[in-house]
Each structure stands twice: as structure tokens, then as C-alpha cells.
């Protein structure tokens, strides 16, 4: 679960990382009030959970109340990469002597936490990483050993910094690492970590993504996870315990397994457009698939539905019963193609066929999608 910048800044502040004076505003008059307290000029930052927000026009400056009114109004009525801006962060505009970068993540390949730092922070950090790898340094932390400040000092010394900056930056890294541990963060990042003209540091942005699998044991007050899903269908997916991604097309898709779902989408995408991506996970029941059908059918103008499931850990014959009940109760007319293989496959096929579902018994998903393509009229 990714936290909003303003939420992450509060957490960073609690452990003593220096952060800007700031306030969150959901309306223009709130923004005016916050800016009045802070003093002009201020930064206005759209609180949306997408990357590349700055380059997409989500970060602005205002030097006067009049300017703020105009900018705040613009932001609060805009969308960034399709996400409506419901809140903006109003914060002091720091004088920037230099922009640094520090991020902590878990390196999937080595299986260890990794601390990444750079003397060239800012919106183009990824380009810097490619163009000037010498400006990036990183260190892996041995899980059984843990993090100690001397590791950060060693890392920063590699970048050829002065001791004063090494000392204050090491302090920030230690605090960020504690946050990463306590919140079981997959990503904790400050970009930019600003060096002020007086040599002090200021975390001008804050990224914190908590491991969804650890949410139940991160005992700290975290905002509710469902609420932050903007799309109502995706929110509904989370509620019923499946992964739902809303897309632009008109072919509904239910799959068991993310890989199979992605492959199905790739094959559909060659000739048609998927309307959504619903991945059931390993907990299929009749009731769950009934709700899955309900969810994908909420998309208007669906031309067909493709169900692609395997009976490994999942009782697909149970799932089929739920689909059939939905079809019968709602008198579904659009074509439904199902590929269902594995344990109890014959029983499953029979149940599907009883409600007019087109069952494909061949192994390749490609074949099932060929059938789907025929059924929607080949366009």
C-alpha cells in the first residue's frame, strides 16, 4: 500500500527527519489558510498516487495569494495521469543549494534490503542512474546482521562528500531505515533530499509503500487501504478479495493466477481490447466467482467474457457453479468463453455448458481466444 506524500511526511517527521512546514488542503480556502500560516512563496503539490507527478504538471509554485488561488483551483480540478486530484499539499518553498536522493528497497535478486543514494536527486534520478552511474552508490544490508550507521558513512564517503554532510545524511538514512523496518516498507524514499544554503537537510518529498502482506502486523496507525483506491470497481475488487484492474476495452477477463491473466490479456490485446483484468487468487468458491461475474459485468458495453482458470489449488467445479448461477439469475446474453483445465475439469465443463458457456478444452489459451474472436464477430 502506497501512502500519500502528506501521510508519509507525517511519519518521517515523527522519527525526526527534517521536513518542510506544510498543510493539506482539499479546497482552495484551505490552501489559502495554510499558505498564510507558512508564508509565501509556497509549493503546491497534487496528492495522487502516481509516479512522475512533477513532470506531469502536478507541482506548482505560488508567490502571492492571488497566484495561489489560480494555481490551487487549477490543480484541484485537474487529473494527473487519469487520477483526480482531491487534495493538495501546501508547503514552504525551500531554498535549494543541492538535491540529493536516498531510497531504501528490497532487492529482489539478492533478497536483501538495499540503500541507494545519489548526489543528483530530483525528478530525473532514473536518467542519472543510467547516464552517470558514478553519481549513484548503494549498499546491501545482510538480513542477519542489520543496519548500522557506519555502513551509511562508508557509502557516502564513496561519493566523495564532506564530513558535515556525511554526518547529517547518515542520520537521515538511519531514521529512514528504521521506518522501512517498522512499517515493513517495500519502498521508502526521499527525492529530493534538499541541502539548504545553511548546510542543513530537508526531506522535500516522501515515498512510503508498505508491504500489503505485512499490513496486519504493522501495528501503527495506517490510513485505511480500501479508501485510497480511486476506481470504484477496483475498490470493490479489494473488498471481495481479488485483484481487479480497470481497463479501457470491452472484453471481460477472469483468470486464476496473475501470469495466466497477463498472458490472456496479451493474447486478447493482439486483436481486441480487454475491459478489465480480474485475478481470483487461490481462494475460488462458487460464491467468489458469482461476485467476480457481478464485478466484471459492471463495465458497460461488454461484448464478451473470457474465463481462464486452472484446477490446481482451486476447486474450479465450485467456481463454475457460481458463474452459472450468475448467468441464470441475470439472464446474461453476451458470449462467455471458458477454458478450465486441471483437477475435476470434466465436471467443470459440464457445469459451464449447462448455462451455455462456450467451453474450450484445448491447452492453449490462444485457441480459446480464437473462439472468443469468432463469437464477437471477428472485430
Amino acid at each position: 500500500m502506497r501512502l500519500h506524500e502528506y501521510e508519509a511526511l507525517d511519519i518521517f517527521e515523527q522519527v525526526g527527519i527534517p521536513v518542510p512546514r506544510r498543510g493539506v488542503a482539499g479546497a482552495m480556502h484551505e490552501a489559502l489558510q495554510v499558505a498564510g500560516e507558512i508564508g509565501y512563496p509556497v509549493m503546491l503539490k497534487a496528492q495522487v498516487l502516481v509516479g512522475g507527478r512533477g513532470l506531469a504538471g502536478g507541482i506548482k509554485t505560488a508567490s502571492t495569494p492571488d497566484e495561489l488561488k489560480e494555481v490551487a483551483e487549477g490543480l484541484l480540478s485537474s487529473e494527473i495521469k487519469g487520477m483526480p486530484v482531491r487534495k493538495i499539499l501546501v508547503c514552504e518553498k525551500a531554498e535549494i543549494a543541492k538535491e540529493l536522493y536516498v531510497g531504501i528497497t528490497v532487492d529482489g535478486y539478492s533478497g536483501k534490503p538495499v540503500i541507494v543514494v545519489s548526489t543528483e536527486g530530483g525528478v530525473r534520478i532514473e536518467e542519472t542512474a543510467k547516464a552517470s552511474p558514478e553519481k549513484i552508490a548503494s549498499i546491501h544490508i545482510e538480513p542477519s546482521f542489520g543496519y548500522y550507521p557506519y555502513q551509511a558513512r562508508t557509502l557516502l564517503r564513496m561519493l566523495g562528500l564532506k564530513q558535515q554532510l556525511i554526518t547529517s545524511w547518515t542520520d537521515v538514512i538511519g531514521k529512514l531505515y528504521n521506518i522501512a523496518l517498522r512499517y515493513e516498507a517495500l519502498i521508502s524514499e526521499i527525492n529530493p533530499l534538499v541541502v539548504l544554503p545553511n548546510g542543513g537537510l530537508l526531506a522535500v518529498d516522501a515515498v512510503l509503500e508498505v508491504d500489503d502482506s505485512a499490513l496486519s502486523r504493522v501495528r501503527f496507525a495506517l490510513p485505511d487501504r480500501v479508501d485510497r483506491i480511486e476506481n470504484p470497481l477496483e475498490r470493490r475488487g479489494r473488498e471481495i478479495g481479488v485483484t481487479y484492474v480497470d481497463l479501457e476495452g470491452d472484453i471481460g477477463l477472469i483468470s486464476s493466477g496473475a501470469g495466466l491473466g497477463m498472458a490472456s490479456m496479451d493474447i486478447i490485446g493482439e486483436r481486441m481490447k480487454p475491459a478489465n483484468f480480474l485475478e481470483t487468487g487461490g481462494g475460488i468458491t462458487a460464491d467468489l466467482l458469482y461476485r467476480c461475474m457481478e464485478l466484471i459485468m459492471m463495465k458497460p458495453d461488454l461484448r464478451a467474457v473470457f474465463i481462464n482458470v486452472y484446477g490446481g489449488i482451486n476447486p474450479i467445479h465450485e467456481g463454475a457453479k457460481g458463474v452459472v448461477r450468475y448467468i441464470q439469475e441475470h439472464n446474461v446474453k453476451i458470449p462467455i468463453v471458458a477454458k478450465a483445465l486441471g483437477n475435476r475439469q470434466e465436471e467443470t465443463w459440464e457445469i459451464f455448458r449447462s448455462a451455455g458457456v462456450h467451453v474450450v478444452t484445448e491447452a492453449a489459451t490462444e485457441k480459446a481466444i480464437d473462439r472468443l474472436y469468432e463469437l464477437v464477430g471477428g472485430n
Partner: protein
Amino acid sequence: MSILIDDSTRVIVQGITGRIGSTQTHWMLEYGTKVVGGVTPGKGGSTVEGVPVFDSVKEAVQETGANASVFFVPAAFVLDAFLETIDAGVKLIVVVPEHIPVKDVVKMRSYANEKGVFALGPTTPGILVPGKGKMGIMPASLFAPGRVGIISRSGTLSYEFAGILSESNVGQSTVVGMGADPVVLRNLADILELFQEDEGTDGVIVVGEVGGEQEEKAAGFIARKMTKPVAAYIAGRHSPQGKRMGHAGAIVRGTTGTVDGKQEALRAAGVEVLQSPIHVAEWAKKHNLR
């Protein structure tokens, strides 16, 4: 021949008394797997599908001579059970459950490495050797004995590839799910190495997906060490950038981890990159694999 599972493999099922644990024990036994015991603390003394249940892994190993374990333990208890299993001397562990915190996986991996234990998962369908046995949840009907190895980051896509091959009368030596999480207990290259060394395997299929850098790193290994033909499929070409596709392993981070990047790296290593699973049949035919 096969990798990881052979005639000497004696399997215990951890969490055997649970709904999934008992059902899958049934399927594993039916497939001929030597399931010699199960473990659920507090349920020692009972039996599931005729298999004796023990309170601790240590007892199970002592009483049954087990050397391998498959996990159907609730996610919150996996770390503890995993460490217990290693301390009991088990050398092969398959961790089927999903939603295990990354922090726990990091610890599990570190300890398994330290103790020389081969572990797969989390979020893996397990290992299946056609006609011989299986540890995990792979549905047996889709597999056929033969000489092609499959390694997949996705559970269901491993079934898809095995199903397509079997339909084309190409069998599999071993099918391995490496796990779909952002951190897994063994990297892709470790499993490729086993297939390269296995006399029963003539070619290998790598089923990857968008996100992470397993395929890119494996490409280096393939270029340096693999002499057998390798085909690869990478799912996720049409997945929206930055959106989650069901598990964190599928998040695209920056340019590393894109489908294009992975395909390019694999092609450069001499791997045949398949655009759709169905093309695997032709590839097998071209290399005379059966």
C-alpha cells in the same frame, strides 16, 4: 531423470490438517508421491489420507526419514515453520502459500542459504516430475513424461505450457514453479543450472513475466553456461505500466523489468523468445524435443 525430486524423495506436508493441505495430500499421494508424514502442531497422533501427523518437524523427520517438505501453512506462521524445518535437517522445501511478508522471505532466504537448503516459493505451485511425483498443487492431468524442463514464475502459466507440450506429445522432465513474489527463495539461474546438469533434460522453457530482474540476470547465466536450447515467454506486454497485476513481482520499476528489456536480454543470450505460449510446440519440434 529429473531435478529436485527423485526416487529417494520422502515428503512431509506441513499444515496437512488444513483444508488445502489435506486435499493436496490426496492429489500428491494419488500421483505416486512418497508422502510419508504431515505436521500440524497440536494434531500429532492423528492421520490424514492415511498419513501420520506429528506435532513437530523434528519428530516427523525422525519417525519417517523425510528429506523434503511442502508447505500449506498459513502465511503468518510460515517463517517460524520454515526455520523449524531447516533445523530439523530437511534439505528441500517448497513454500506454496502466498501473501508472506517480504521481510519474512528475506530472513528465510538468508537462513536457507546459510544452511545449504534448496527452497522454492513463496507463491509457487511447486515441483512436478511427470509420472513420478509432485510437491505442491500442480494439476497432474496436464503433464506427461519427457525431456523438456519448465521453470515458471507464474503457477498457472506453467500448467499452460506443460498442457500445450503434452497435447503435442512433448513430455516434461521436471516442471518447477519458482514463485511469484518480489523476493523468492531461489533465483531463476539456480534452477537453470540444475536443468543444464540433468541428463534427463534436453531443453528448457523459461516462463517469466514483467517486473523484477530475474530474466535479465538469468540471461547472463544462459550465455555463459547453458548448452541446451532455451525458449522463453514473458507475460505482461499489455499490462498497464505501474499498475499491479495481482502480485508485487509484476510491478514495473523503471526500465529494468520491462517485457522488451527482458526479451532483448534473453535473445542476446541465444534464447528463442516466444510471442505466445502456443508457439512452444513448434520450438520443441524444431529442436526434436520429446
